[in-house]
């Protein structure tokens, strides 16, 4: 992309959520690495109901806006739609934003290649425009990144006299498994069986560390780091404790299987229960009487609350990180459009991601597919409807807002991850929560051969009555690639 001139006008609602347009501009640089760029953005207060982002604020919107333009460019240049994305995608030396800051890692081309293989792009793309009866086939790609991690949070854990490791988590539990997955970082550092780990979470009376909000753009990255840091500190305390009790220097000791023991001689050491008792007896830094000064205040209070209950370790995530953490999702879809009703069925869907190290394969697939489905819903049926004169919202119930249901998505969506660790974080994991939405929304629109001007783009937007009485679906014309659009069809939101 040699140049990108981006002018965004943002409908900010009555109280002005003013950041999305700016994020959109940054994400645009991330995806396409434009050689030259002018960016202008204007947030506007509007007499409409209050609104807030659901996922990938700014990112989902800009992907929906620009991906079809890239497809149009590919068509004009005679370049494959997959190739044009790979040409413009960043590598590890990529950049983003006004300051052209680096990424920590970017396996974008790898994700696209993996998706193309999973979806069988080379074969499937030939189906685009095929008509069988009233059904026209469309095939498309969506590529979506979003920020995927923060730093500077704290880890806090205790080995209690029962010999188990208690990992205190300040994050919530939304059913995404990150409450457990991020604790596994500590188990791995300690080489400890997972069934010897107890996760402590909930209200702050349980002495929780300073944490991120529970969000896809934050949690996995931030708390694998924080728990890794605290577990590393815990290993140090165990080694020092063992050296004090059993002689030698801390470096002579190893930690594994619920014991700290002398390297080369496992019989010289103590188990975690014994270590906890000794820590309580010794007090001070071993049982929470002292703690690192750089901890956040919330964590300091929690350590104080836990003092004397075992071997207590707390640490702030001070790992260096040079660059922005971004996760990428590429989605590929095959859809069938019924030209008589405008209904679209997604008959095949494959998504891949570069989110660093895979922490939990099934949960990752669920997060990715779920996000893609949400994006499909935003593109197709989920709506925000209010009377433009009176500003009163109507989509105030689940069935009126119309998010997609299970019958609206393929029964067996496919998924794969590049699974390459991010080198700037000790566990290598990045978040997954945000970017699938943009990919899902974009792929659904692109598969219909439609350059949507508005979202959502319900199937009825393609079924307009024109003055000639034909009532032809605009998308069918686009997919067939053989006709000009009527003015009505252009107004319907499906136009080049």
């Amino acid at each position, binding site marked *: 992309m040699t140049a990108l001139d981006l002018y965004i006008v943002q409908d900010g609602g009555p109280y002005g959520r003013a950041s999305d347009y700016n994020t959109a501009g940054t994400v645009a640089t991330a995806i396409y690495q434009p050689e030259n760029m002018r960016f202008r953005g204007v947030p506007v207060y509007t007499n409409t109901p209050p609104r807030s982002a659901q996922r990938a604020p700014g990112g989902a919107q800009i992907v929906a806006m620009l991906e079809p333009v890239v497809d149009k460019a590919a068509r004009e240049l005679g370049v494959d739609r997959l190739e044009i994305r790979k040409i413009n995608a960043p590598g590890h030396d990529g950049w983003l934003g006004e300051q052209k800051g680096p990424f920590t890692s970017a396996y974008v081309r790898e994700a696209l290649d993996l998706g193309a293989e999973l979806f069988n792009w080379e074969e499937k793309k030939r189906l685009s425009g095929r008509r069988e009866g009233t059904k026209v086939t469309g095939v498309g790609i969506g590529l979506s990144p979003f920020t995927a991690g923060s730093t500077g949070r704290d880890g806090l854990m205790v080995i209690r006299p029962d010999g188990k490791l208690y990992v205190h988590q300040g994050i919530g539990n939304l059913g995404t498994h990150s409450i457990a997955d991020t604790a596994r970082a500590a188990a791995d550092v300690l080489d400890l069986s997972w069934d010897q780990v107890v996760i402590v979470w909930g209200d702050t009376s349980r002495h929780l560390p300073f944490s991120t909000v529970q969000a896809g753009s934050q949690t996995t990255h931030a708390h694998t780091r924080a728990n890794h840091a605290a577990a590393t500190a815990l290993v140090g305390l165990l080694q020092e404790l063992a050296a004090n009790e059993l002689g030698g220097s801390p470096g002579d000791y190893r930690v594994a299987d619920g014991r700290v023991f002398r390297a080369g001689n496992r019989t010289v050491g103590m188990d975690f229960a014994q270590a906890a008792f000794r820590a309580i007896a010794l007090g001070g830094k071993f049982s929470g009487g002292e703690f690192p000064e750089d901890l956040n205040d919330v964590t300091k209070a929690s350590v104080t609350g836990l003092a004397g209950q075992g071997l207590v370790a707390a640490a702030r995530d001070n790992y260096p990180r040079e660059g922005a953490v971004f996760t990428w999702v590429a989605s590929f879809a095959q859809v069938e459009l019924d030209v008589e009703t405008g209904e679209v069925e997604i008959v095949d869907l494959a998504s891949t991601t570069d989110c660093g190290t895979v922490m939990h394969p099934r949960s990752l697939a669920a997060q990715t597919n779920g996000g893609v489905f949400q994006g499909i819903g935003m593109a197709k049926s989920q709506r925000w*409807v209010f009377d433009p004169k009176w500003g009163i919202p109507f989509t105030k119930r689940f069935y009126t807002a119309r998010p997609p249901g299970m019958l609206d998505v393929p029964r067996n969506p496919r998924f794969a991850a590049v699974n390459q660790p991010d080198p700037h974080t000790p566990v290598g994991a990045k978040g997954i929560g945000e970017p699938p939405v943009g990919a899902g929304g974009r792929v659904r629109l692109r598969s219909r051969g439609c350059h949507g001007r508005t979202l959502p783009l319900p199937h*009825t937007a393609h079924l307009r009555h024109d003055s000639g009485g034909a009532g032809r679906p605009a998308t069918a014309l686009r997919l067939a690639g053989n006709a000009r659009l009527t003015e009505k069809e252009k107004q319907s939101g499906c136009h080049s």
Partner: protein
Amino acid sequence: MAVIRDMIPPFELFQPAGVDDAVRLMQEHGDQGWVLAGGLDTFDWFKDRIKRPSAVIDLGGIDELRGISAGADGGLEIGAMTSLTDISENADVVGGYPLLATSAGLVATPQIRNQGTLGGNIAQDTRCWYYRSGWPCYRAGGNICYAATPRSMNREHCIMGASRCVAVNPSDTAPALVALDAEMVVASTSGERTYAATDFFIGPDLDITRMTVLEPGDLLTQIRLPAPWSGARHYFEKICDRKSWDFSLASVASMLNVEGGVIQDARLVVNGIAPYPVRMGAAEAAVRGRAPSDETGQMAGEIAVEGSRALRHNDYKIALTRNLVKRAIRDAA
């Protein structure tokens, strides 16, 4: 923020054990009484505090309103409180009246079909969001239709049958019942009367505050189906934004009697485009004596939308109706 208030205003609850008791209670409470069937139309109204009846008459305990049994002349009699799941799965309905079985099986979700009743699905109020949000429109007793102004959000509203109000009938089963020549049995303290399904649903030109003939004190008790057409071809299709828990943007039900490759008789009904299920009489007449082909369907579709008039956001319904009618002729099986 959404105006959803989950506190339902207090009311007096009656749970009659028989139809006679129910209609007596309905008569007693008049327009202050509310008939509760499956509750799926009711509780949104109540939670939003837009409907505030002083008495609720719960039909859940009236066994005589449930069940599917053989009717006169080879037909079926279906109690109004029969669940949509029972109807969609009943062998006699599936075998003899696939239009009804299919349409009932497409209502909302399995959970709602388990709880929802055929009578409730037929008699439910319109889903016009201006009306259901409590705006003082014609249908609510006011003097304006908020959905018909130049700036209104009216993608879901009607393209025909409007008379001041532009709301549409939301029922999935209603067009099937009209196509099947069903009869509606209505009880009141004055006795029992029956209506042809096509007459049961009314437009705002007759009464802008109601969608059916039911007045306060009237109870829909039974739906009677005549004997099915021998060898008939059927077609039902519901178009909506998503495949579950959604009301139709338009739906079509057709029943064709085809002999020797020629349509002898036809029933053709479209819902979601008018305040009542629209029986396409002119199209029915036009297809008689013709093959059920794409050309015949196209002709029927063109006839069906004659006189239709789009609002600002729903001109797609004209094309959609035309195409659905075409499919209902061409693809009936």
